[in-house]
């Protein structure tokens, strides 16, 4: 046993190379470990798509290691309005991405590592992968109390979630990916993952909130690099391959032809917001105008991220009915998006009667409506 670990250490010392290569190293069997040089969530998600579509995993399995700059990642069938504080995301310039796998919403930053296990569909086995991760963690820090639950979460001290899982199965290949919290910003995490939007009714997959903890809090000597290394080593051992991590650049078309199109697709509004399952918004808000309080009731049906049906209930004659119906007509078919709505309502104002009173009422109503988005 001791000899084996000594040998392992030797291998680790001599073989932990991270050489950038334009192609993939061929091994007759076993695993290939690749790491992304990019921190862009869209580029990294595109790599997963690319491998799913283009790689032959019959004789080889792949482990993909990646980290992202601050981003919120929602599951394939989720509703971003339900899952996170979109206003805060926009303010803080945190990206929003929709991944192709199922599951719930997570927050990524550079203190979180992502692991993707690629196999053929037949060899898809999530429990095995998570056990591998736990084994690696325990090898690194034997005193860590980490275990896998039957919901495919990894818990620290039986209480705190440090890893969440999701998976995607394609025609012949599949991947299982999971997060691992090393040193993420928990404050930002909890504030962005709290949705302020009321009155949403949807069949989208809901997230299950959980208390989280960073591994760093348990052991301040841990870094993301160490975790990545430990997991790569365990993977290499289990797949009888050498502990060699190939770096890949997710923008390189020569290595990953067609990758930039995949990256672009993941960034389109149609994918991020437009793929939200049909939902409805039914809410009311009050506005203070001069010395009066007004109650406004809004009902909207949103399909493919666009307002399919819109109903605004205002106190009578507060706005000329013609104007009101013009607003509703213009909003119908429009994206449920604050920017789109802002430009729409301000443009419409140009063809309204030029009355300051009217304009301030219109602006007040529209600003409140935009807050819903």
């Amino acid at each position, binding site marked *: 046993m001791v000899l084996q670990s000594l040998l392992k250490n030797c291998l680790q010392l001599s073989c932990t190379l991270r050489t950038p290569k*334009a192609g993939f190293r061929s091994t*007759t069997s076993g695993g290939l470990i690749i790491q992304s040089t990019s921190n862009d969530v869209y580029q990294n998600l595109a790599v997963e798509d690319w491998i799913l579509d283009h790689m032959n995993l019959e*004789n080889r399995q792949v482990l993909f290691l990646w980290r992202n700059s601050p981003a919120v990642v929602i599951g394939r069938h989720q509703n971003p309005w339900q899952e996170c504080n979109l206003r805060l995301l926009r303010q803080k310039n945190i990206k929003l991405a929709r991944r192709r796998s199922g599951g719930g919403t997570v927050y990524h930053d550079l203190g979180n590592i992502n692991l993707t296990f690629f196999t053929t569909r037949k060899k898809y086995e999530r429990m095995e992968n998570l056990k591998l991760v736990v084994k690696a963690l325990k090898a690194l820090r034997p005193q860590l109390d980490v275990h896998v639950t039957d919901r495919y979460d990894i818990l620290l001290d039986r209480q705190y979630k440090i890893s969440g899982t999701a998976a995607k199965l394609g*025609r012949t290949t599949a991947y299982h990916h999971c997060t691992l919290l090393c040193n993420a910003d928990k404050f930002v995490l909890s504030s962005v993952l709290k949705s302020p939007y009321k009155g949403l009714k949807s069949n989208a997959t809901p997230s299950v909130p959980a208390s989280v903890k960073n591994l760093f809090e348990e052991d301040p000597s841990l870094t993301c690099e160490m975790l990545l290394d430990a997991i790569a080593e365990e993977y290499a051992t289990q797949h009888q391959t050498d502990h060699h991590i190939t770096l890949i650049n997710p923008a390189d078309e020569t290595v990953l032809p067609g990758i930039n199109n995949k990256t672009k697709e993941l960034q389109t509004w149609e994918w991020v917001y437009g793929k939200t399952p049909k939902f409805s918004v039914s809410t009311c808000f009050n506005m203070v105008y001069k010395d009066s309080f007004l109650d406004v009731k809004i009902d909207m049906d949103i399909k493919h991220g*666009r307002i399919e049906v819109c109903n605004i209930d205002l106190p009578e004659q507060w706005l000329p009915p013609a104007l009101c119906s013009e607003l509703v007509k213009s909003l119908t078919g429009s994206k449920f998006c604050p920017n789109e709505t802002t430009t729409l309502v301000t*443009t419409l104002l*140009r063809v309204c009667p030029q009355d300051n009173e009217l304009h301030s009422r219109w602006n007040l109503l529209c600003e409140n409506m935009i807050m819903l988005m």
Partner: protein
Amino acid sequence: VCIHRVRSCSSIRFIKSKYVCVFDKSALKFSHQQRLFRTSAVSCGQIVQFKLSDIGEGITEVTVKEWYIKEGDSVSQFDSICEVQSDKASVTITSRYDGIIRKLHYNLDDIAYVGKPLVDIEIDASKGVAPEEDVVETPPMSHEEHTHQEIKGHKTLATPAVRRLAMENNIKLSEVVGTGKDNRILKEDILNYLAKQTGAILPPSPKAEIIPPLPKSETVPAAPKDKARKIPVPVSRPIVFSGKDKTEPITGFHKAMVKTMSAALKIPHFGYCDEIDLTQLVQLREELKPLAQIRGVKLSFMPFFIKAASLGLLQYPILNASLDESCQNVTYKASHNIGVAMDTEQGLIVPNVKNVQVCSVFEIASELNRLQSLGSAGQLGTNDLTGGTFTLSNIGTIGGTYAKPVILPPEVAIGALGKIQVLPRFNGKGEVFKAQIMNVSWSADHRIIDGATMARFSNLWKSYLENPASMLLDLK
């Protein structure tokens, strides 16, 4: 290429049925609780029930989350049919058949069961059927699959793209270890072979992914031997363009623009154009740019154009007015809220700088920076986008000289600025010198503004810009 493909298709059918029998046996080894489909020819128009195949991990039920097709759609083998979800796993279900979708057995958010019918597909009798187990691991680049099967007779298995890569690098395929199925040689194997040879990875030629026409020596003739093997020569074939028209509804912001522009059309426009010598201004800006930079502001030419316009509007306030709907009253606006046309992903938006009449050039520049960054982030607020009284459009940043801008109601005038060009001009002494020339094109509402007013305003604006020091005299 078209013709070539059709031929390969017909020859593949022949080979495929042989192939399929081979794989049925191996499928037996791998099947779990799956029933095998007989791949004999199906009679025309037969409805086949496509069952939901095994997801793995012992999962028996999933939720249908999205349909990619609807009843009546025609579908090809490997096309995506729907997306189902089970316990954090999202699965794309692809079609095993070519045919027409006749029935969807589930609605969105219904629970679907593994082994039970998912959709009914009416099969086209002339086409074959994929075997139960997925035979080919490469993605639905069916051309590649067909050619692969075509040359199965050879000892070394490799797709034409891989063969070409090997040929280009003078590599004998027999010397390369194949890591694909059945020892098939993959592109990575060629790259690795090269790496070992030269110690560096050569990037594959960018066209390696495009399947080239097969070189004569490598084509294996399909079943009937008298079929001539020809390299496709695209000379006398009619050019087939398979693009389709795409119609989409006009929604949201674009709908609003339609309304605005239709209203603008009702305004009787007249135009007035001129050229401005910006030589002195260019020099001034060069001097002031670093000063603004120190204060954290990027200084372009626009702040100067905007301030000069405001100074001009003080003398010709009719250009900063608004005509009511009935054309009975003119309202002279006190604030000079000068709009700046911005090109964003969405299209044209016009935020405005408020109260330019009391702003310094630096303050205008600072405000422009703020509007520009909000504009590119898609975060402009209603206040920034409303209340404009006069607009400048710097189309010259994209290009062009003279333009015919359209007035944005409820305003009465607009100016379009062309690009700055270095042109030869005569100076006071009759000498030719290099001048920085920009063209301006004004449009105004002829119901309340006349040509003379526009001309005089333009001349005043021009004089401020051609001799920037003169702006100092009138600054408040």
